[in-house]
């Protein structure tokens, strides 16, 4: 998405929206992987099943490493509501099942969108979500949840 940065004005707007993302209650969420990833795109169903722990691989068969934003952050609540139709308590209940039956461990939690971008750039198979406005050339968008 390097084309987003051709206009300084647009960049400034994007930077502003990135700063504002913590206060925005209804920002579109972009599902992102490393810019180098070969995964072409994902359907809403595929993203939902992945983050509900029903599947464990990205399209193409690479083991997925889920990256979450902090509990209670607007981005996290927004993402799960849009991707899975479930609220924070429902997601906690679901991961309690998976954790305490020994089936899976909950996603790795990082501090914010910048850390999500770092994590997906660094880890093969890592997939996270950030405000659409925080998207830059380091990540590839697989799905946008408006």
């Amino acid at each position: 998405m390097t084309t987003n940065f051709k206009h300084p004005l647009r960049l400034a707007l994007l930077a502003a929206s990135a700063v504002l993302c913590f206060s925005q209650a209804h920002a579109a969420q972009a599902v992102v992987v490393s810019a180098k990833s070969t995964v072409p795109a994902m359907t809403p169903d595929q993203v939902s099943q992945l983050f509900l722990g029903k599947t464990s691989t990205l399209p193409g068969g690479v083991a997925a490493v889920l990256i979450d934003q902090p509990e209670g952050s607007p981005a996290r609540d927004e993402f799960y509501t849009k991707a899975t139709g479930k609220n924070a308590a429902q997601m906690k209940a679901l991961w309690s099942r998976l954790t305490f039956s020994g089936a899976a461990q909950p996603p790795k939690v990082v501090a914010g969108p910048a850390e999500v971008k770092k994590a997906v750039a660094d880890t093969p198979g890592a997939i996270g979500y950030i405000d659409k406005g925080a998207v830059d050339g380091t990540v590839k968008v697989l799905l946008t949840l408006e």
Partner: protein
Amino acid sequence: MHSVSRRQALSPRRLVRLSTAAAALLACQASAWADGPQFRFSGFGTLGVAHSTNKQADYTANFDQPSGPGYSRSWDAGLDSKLAGQMDVTFSSKFSATAQVETRRRYDASFKPDLMLAFGKWQATPEVSVRLGRLPYPAFLISDYREVGYSQTTVRPPVDFYQGVFPRRFTGADVTWRTSVDSVALKAIGFYGKELAKLPNGIEIDFTRVYGLNLSADVGDMNYRISYMDFKFNPSSAQLGAVFQGVAFGFPAGALGTGSPAIPGDPALANAYYRPGMHTFYGSLSANYDPGDWFVNSEVAMAQAVSFFPQRQFYYVTSGVRLDKFTPYATVSGMLAENFAVTGHPVVDQILAGSQASSQRTVGIGLRWDAVKNVALKTQFDSVKLDTGSTGQFANVQPGFTPGSRIGIFSLAVDFVF
């Protein structure tokens, strides 16, 4: 990695590149930290009280609980209360280990902590994992997280269905294979192992071989599950052993009470109901729908007759509506035990009659309130109706108990995770 040239002006593009480089550097550090084993401690628990309207028998949630509200206590804090801690150690993306210790009311009435889970996991491929050690027994939908109140809408799994399900865990191995075809997520779990299950009154059931297979498919918000489980076991109880010894070799006159006649020995009959290496199986089907705002869960299961356990059918349907932090729900469930053929042996027929007269049905309503983060408050009322002549799945049934009665169970619970 982007190089930085002095000739370039401090353009926005260059800033982005600089920050990308910085991010990559930080990420390198992060991955260096992640090299050693990573430890994660978490846990769950429930504080609950329950009351039964019947004072002549105990309501229990699990087959291995020796008592409950009713005869033993008016209000019982031991039916649902529990505390568990779990340590997960991740060695690499392929290897991890898990141990879980739980305290709850056990078969011997104590709350002695128990090692519920202890296993190593090998992620052989992105789609296939193998676990080895002490594992949860994945009989039915809720089986492997039945203790985790917070993860369920109801106070406890439907008792008609889940009360008699054991073993709860086993020692052995399981293999999980997950894949997806278009938008259908598929999962298959095969398991094999053994377990010594301890029950109240000194009864032990040595499952010398348990194995099974369960398959599930997620299609959008629908989930389907099918399972098959097979057991080979040795019953062990001093009391029952002595009774069936009598059946095999005969009871002399007066042995079963003053004036009772002599009963000739019947080794074949004793062997049919009590011997090492008995074999049985369970099968189940489940369908669930959960789009978020409401849900419905349903299961049906069948257990083949074996020993003095009759053929049984189990079912339940639970549905609820999620209204922000409140989830009102209702459950309808039942356990129907079929009748054994009469053997003509007075002692055997008496045991079989007692075992088969256990059919019961329940209608329950409740409310879950996700009051604060990681804590759920629940209240539930169950109306248990015993079939004609049945004492249901109640424990410590007293002589004053009326078979076929309707019994109310009131429960309050606070579930938490940490």
